[in-house]
């Protein structure tokens, strides 16, 4: 079996898991101040992700680490070519993680309100930046022969050139809509009371926006027709399920759409990992970027031993915190 191909699959899997799991974390962060009336309800909404968000975020660490280990050139070109967007992403993730972790450490309404505001803004910014980044990576960068995006037109041109393209703008909008959809369906599934009731209203509109983004991407050639068709149908089903009060189905269908879109975007050019928009010969491919046979077999053994365990104990964490969180006072 070709280990490079296996690792391409694993990198894609890590990205998909990260964008699904943190997708609803971002959505909950954005929706908590909107859906939560008062501090207790906002707290209840955030309590659904508080024990698990950090574990979810490690899938980003895994995705980047796997890219570095299995395809050093992919890692180097993708990160250096998207220097400023990636730096901005890291800053947004920093604000988000700290706001979420620190809000409960003080019994002070104003402190919490500030943390919640920072959390909502940084969650929205992270979700759209991630969407834009995935959109750009799917479309390719202006890689030169050394795998770098040259700064001919200056630093600003380097950044603007990567971000000012339809793929990035669609990705940003899609990322925002997908996070909202995942967050709303997750809150519907994980809370009781006011937050749960109000979350339902956000499923239809966010599914609609996401469907429109997927359609436009399909028309522009960014996604294959079968994927577009399937996603639009599943999004419709998710909206209907939410309306019918089938919260589990609404969430599962939303997860499926996010996963399918991410996988489709990342694998459609395979074996090209990151295409050069200047010359196809300069693209980063599975063959050109693969690590040595020894390095690949080392990380493969490590993954074989470790990843099942990771999935098991992360599953355990979700199972331990499976009970719905009450967003209204429980009569005693």
């Amino acid at each position, binding site marked *: 079996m070709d280990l490079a191909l296996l690792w391409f699959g694993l990198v894609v899997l890590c990205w998909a898991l990260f964008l699904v799991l943190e997708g609803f974390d971002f959505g909950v962060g954005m929706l908590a101040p909107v859906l939560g009336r008062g501090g207790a309800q906002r*707290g209840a909404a955030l309590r659904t992700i508080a024990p698990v968000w*950090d574990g979810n975020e490690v899938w980003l660490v895994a995705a980047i680490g796997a890219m*570095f*280990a299995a395809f050093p050139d992919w890692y180097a070109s993708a*990160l250096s070519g998207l*220097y400023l967007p990636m730096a901005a992403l890291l800053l947004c993730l920093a604000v988000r993680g700290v706001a979420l972790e620190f809000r409960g450490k003080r019994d002070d309404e104003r402190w919490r309100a500030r943390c919640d505001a920072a959390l909502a803004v940084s969650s929205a910014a992270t979700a759209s930046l991630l969407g834009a980044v995935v959109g750009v990576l799917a479309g390719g960068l202006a890689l030169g022969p050394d795998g770098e995006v040259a700064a001919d037109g200056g630093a600003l041109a*380097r*950044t603007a050139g990567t971000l000012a393209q339809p793929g990035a703008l669609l990705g940003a909008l899609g990322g925002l809509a997908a996070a909202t959809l995942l967050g709303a369906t997750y809150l519907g599934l994980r809370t009781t009371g006011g937050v749960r009731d109000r979350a339902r209203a956000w499923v239809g509109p966010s599914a609609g926006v996401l469907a429109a983004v997927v359609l436009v991407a399909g028309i522009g050639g960014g996604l294959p027709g079968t994927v577009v068709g399937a996603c639009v149908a599943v999004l419709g089903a998710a909206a209907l399920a939410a309306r019918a009060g089938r919260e589990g189905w609404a969430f599962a269908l939303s997860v499926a759409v996010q996963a399918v879109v991410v996988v489709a975007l990342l694998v459609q050019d395979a074996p090209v990992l990151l295409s050069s928009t200047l010359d196809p010969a300069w693209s980063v491919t599975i063959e050109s970027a693969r690590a040595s046979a020894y390095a690949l077999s080392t990380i493969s053994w*490590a993954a074989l031993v470790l990843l099942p365990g990771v999935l098991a104990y992360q599953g355990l964490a979700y199972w331990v915190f499976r009970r719905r*969180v009450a967003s209204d006072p429980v009569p005693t």
Partner: protein
Amino acid sequence: MDTLELARLQFAVVTIYHYFFVPLSISLAALTAGLQTAWHRTGRPHYRELTLLVGKLLMVTFAVGVVTGLVQEFQFGLSWSDFARFYGDVFGPTLAIEGMLAFFLEATFLGLWFFGWDRLPRLAHLATIWVVAIGTLLSAFIILAANSFMQNPVAYQVDPRTGRAQLDSFWALMVNEVNLVAYPHTIAGAAMTGGALLMAVGAWRAWGRGPTARGEQDHLAWRTLARLGGWVTAVAGLAVAITGDLLGKVMTAVQPMKMAAAEALYVTQAGAPFSVFAIGDPRSGGEPLLSLDVPYLLSLLAHGDPGATVQGIDDLQAQYVQEHGPGDYVPWVPVAYWTFRLMIGTGMLAATLAVLFLWVTRRGQGLVRHGGGLAGATRGVLAGRGSLRTLLGTGVLACLPLLPALPVLANTFGWVFTETARQPWLVFGLFRTEDGVGSGLTSAEVLTSLVGFGLVYGVLALVWYRAVRHLVAEDLTSRPVRTNGADADDGDRAPVPTY
């Protein structure tokens, strides 16, 4: 500044900042686990209160460590993409395996621990915090193996076709002789940071100017915290010294230039003295204005033999020119010399304060502050009226605000020393720092991100400090025990332990 200098500055800023929080997380995780175990075994309530407090300090510290650690994993690709291309085959697997083996464990089980008090069986809950503590120690080992490769490249070969390094043996990479001594040295340094923080907090609450303890029980808890922190700081201080000595010997063998720079030793010398301090230009020929030397000590430290010959900077420079071609292979000597001394000085000061504190508070005694402050206590002792204990107690209390910063400074000076004194190399003897930056990167981009990191990190530091200050000023007495109701979760506050 050009792109290279800005990229180096940014790497230094984000890495040093990240490392304020890492050692604290490592030690607080183990200390939380230890305190909870003590409670589990004895059932004494003050251990429970302390477990909760130290656990909260761990949570806020870990959070900042996580979000700043993400930057570490990205920055080899962001600014140092040519380094990533050349050494990705060796370097990448360490980061990937660290993530899969250790970081998933830490992140997932810390969530399970903090929110799992009333959801997990008692023993399983205790196990979760131990898993976190073990995860942090595994993480540190693997990451230090990656750094040890930069100090002393092993377990690789250069692919003749691509000219890039290839990993030969992951095991050999892990058991790099530098890692085997740098790891215990680093962990001992980490233990000092947590120990010093707990000692300062406990002493501040038990005898200092902090909010007064609310009764016997609270006083006992703060005293226990302070003494625990004191023991950890003192024992870890001893371990730091022993492992530091071993690391110095290994470093003399693999990077003689670094240790020569640490001593500003320009001329190769047999029976070389250790310079305690020197002011003036120490370059060959020049006499320092003011200096203090301990004869033969450097030879003893470097080779374990007072008469051994220690290579000087000038000879090493000539040797490296022969080996690697023309160039300047001398690191920035004043920085190496002074960071090395400040590392030892701040670390030893923290350990000394801990030992004095433990002595003064032995056998149930407290810290006593002299009414006239440090000056009054000193006058008292000199006049033969006051007691030495009062003087020491007053002195330790006066040092409390400084105490948590001392090991942090020692860690920082240590890393600045070991990283800058390796220059001009990124991977010693193999890859120059100037070759690591990607060709497309511009100084404007690095400046922009540097300003961004600076602003956000500044705010994070302030928020972290305020949260910690708030947590340590709170009363220990726990809130009323909440019922174990299915839907009675209240906001995102952790449930208090109900068993």
